[in-house]
């Protein structure tokens, strides 16, 4: 097993494909088709993310968090999950939530501030983006606990950042999961930054993954820019959860190659050289190199992908910008199951004014 063979306390970071796209000897890679699919998805989500950023600068989008540097983690997690699994995401998880079945236009609609963006398809077990930090991790534990009581073999994935490990509710979630052996995968994206506070100022712990041992379960550090390593470890942790093995914490080590949100300016606090060094390790480029090395990618693939990406962007933006304005009913209707008389009166007031 990968997880219990890579103790983060011994300084191990699990990696399969290094930054030069060299594959570790003896490693088993996913199928060629899956590798290519990872790449297409990465390129697609990176492109829409970039487009959304430009929309914000044009006044066509409100504040949202970009995902540059997080693509490999989110795509790997999505492909490791099965249909009946649940996801309790933090906010910087657009690609993961999208690949779990939520149209990207809807995700952007939420960030644009339209309530319609919160109406996820009903067959998708994805909780809303948690805006408060770490709070939602407890919900994941509760869901997993419930599934266990019902005898259902599912994995619940909850995602959070390095900063979240400082919150009290992180501790509570990890502890409950350990005590109740909940089928939860704690996926921590350590992107080195909680807005402007760097990883070493966040916790005096050498790694974040090693905290898991204090709660009685395994933790592992994984190269978060290596989609293959991430996919293997996520699959193993999800299988373990589904088969009664309890929780796992995965620390996906990466770097936030973007601002915290469109309202931020990372150049104030990120070191230019440090960031450049991480850009060299980029997960998307790395996978591209791997595909080329293995003869899996040609110029015609590029052409097809370019078209696919453009179609995806055009369609997403079209859907986004065609969405009707928010109505007073939308603001009032989901407060309670039945609208109390007082709210009905207030709704009339809004409609009249």
């Amino acid at each position, binding site marked *: 097993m990968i997880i219990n063979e890579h103790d983060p306390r011994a300084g191990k970071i699990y990696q399969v494909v290094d930054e030069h796209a060299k594959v570790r000897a003896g490693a088993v890679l996913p199928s060629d088709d899956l590798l290519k699919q990872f790449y297409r998805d990465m390129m697609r989500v990176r492109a829409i993310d970039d487009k959304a950023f430009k929309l914000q600068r044009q006044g066509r989008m409100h504040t949202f968090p970009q995902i540059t540097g997080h693509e490999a983690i989110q795509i790997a997690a999505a492909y490791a999950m099965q249909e009946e699994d649940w996801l309790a995401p933090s906010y910087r998880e657009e690609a993961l939530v999208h690949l779990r079945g939520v149209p990207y236009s809807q995700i952007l609609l939420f960030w644009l501030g339209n309530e319609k963006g919160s109406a996820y398809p009903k067959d998708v077990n994805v909780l809303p983006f948690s805006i408060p930090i770490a709070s939602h991790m407890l919900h994941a534990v509760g869901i997993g606990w419930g599934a266990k009581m019902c005898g259902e073999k599912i994995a619940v994935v909850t995602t959070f950042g390095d900063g979240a490990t400082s919150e009290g509710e992180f501790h509570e979630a990890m502890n409950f999961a350990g005590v109740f052996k909940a089928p939860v995968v704690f996926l921590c994206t350590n992107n080195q930054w909680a807005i402007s506070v760097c990883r070493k100022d966040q916790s005096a712990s050498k790694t974040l993954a090693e905290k898991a041992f204090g709660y009685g379960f395994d933790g592992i550090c994984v190269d978060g820019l290596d989609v293959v390593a991430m996919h293997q470890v996520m699959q193993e942790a999800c299988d373990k959860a589904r088969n009664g093995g309890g929780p796992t914490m995965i620390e996906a080590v990466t770097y936030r190659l973007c601002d915290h949100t469109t309202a931020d300016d990372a150049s104030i606090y990120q070191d230019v050289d440090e960031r450049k060094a991480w850009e060299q390790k980029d997960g998307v480029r790395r996978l591209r190199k791997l595909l080329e090395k293995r003869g899996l990618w040609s110029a015609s693939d590029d052409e097809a992908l370019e078209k696919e990406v453009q179609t995806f962007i055009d369609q997403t933006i079209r859907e986004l910008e065609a969405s009707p304005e928010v109505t007073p009913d939308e603001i009032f209707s989901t407060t309670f199951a039945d609208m109390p008389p007082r709210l009905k009166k207030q709704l009339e007031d*809004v409609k009249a*004014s």
Partner: protein
Amino acid sequence: MTQRSLIQAITDGLRVAMERDDRVMVLGEDVGKLGGVFRTTQGLQQKFGKERAVDTPLAEAGIVGTAIGLAMYGMKPVAEIQFMGFDFLAHNQIMAHAARMRNRTRGRWTVPMVVRMPCGGGIHAPELHSDSFEATYAHIAGLKIVMPSTPYDAKGMLLSAIDDPDPVIYLEHKRIYRAVKGEVPEGYYTVPLGKGEIARPGTDLTIVTWGYLRHLAVQVADALSGQGINAEVVDIRTICPLDEALILESVAKTGRLVILHEAPRNCGLGAEISAIVSEEAIFALKAPIVRVTGYDVTMPLPKGENLYLPNEKRLMAAIQKVMEY
């Protein structure tokens, strides 16, 4: 005197307090190197060092809980909660501990800390970044709550809050962070807590409000003067303890009261003000009291904000209603 925005006035107030007393320190998420997500603490770490302008780990209960301990030990912490919506994580510390420490130790220990937090909507910020929960604090005995609406008051009241022997929740309405500028004196001065201000004198009706809405109320009142309606705008400035005398005095003069706040209506501060006026001055009233408030729904996301937030039209309608009497 220098023209400063509300943000610049707060930064200046923090700087003055830190220069005057080396026990004053600011702590919170991103308040140091970045200077705060709104740049309210910009330059403080450069000037006073990492130990007095502290980037803490990401933990609201941690920030407020340690600020309580720091204050009890004699430091003068000014904690920042990045957005009011994230203060729920620190409510236990504020309500169960900061508010009660004086009482629990029979006056031996007190918590002279300030917790600053941006609040309010109107800048198209994401979920939980635009709420107005000021009344929740007012329900807890032992907390002072202020929301200045001009740069002059922002600095003067911040300096009073830092001097104050009790915990002060210092609320900053984001909509006027940069949009409102005004004269701010250099150096140290204070504006007392617990005192409201007549933002615009008038004779026909009283509008009681605070925060951003003070500016809307004055604008509407000015517009109405052409129609022969002379409205008085009372900016309470302090949510708790409330300047009841000022409100009663104004209502005694005008006989009509409109209460304007952004927070939800149910158990909002408007309800308290309305009750006080009913109890103390009902015979001065010529018309029923009218509240213009946010609705009893979850604060909408940005695209729906304008349906929720009190606006000129709703205020005008309320004024017309009380003027019918």
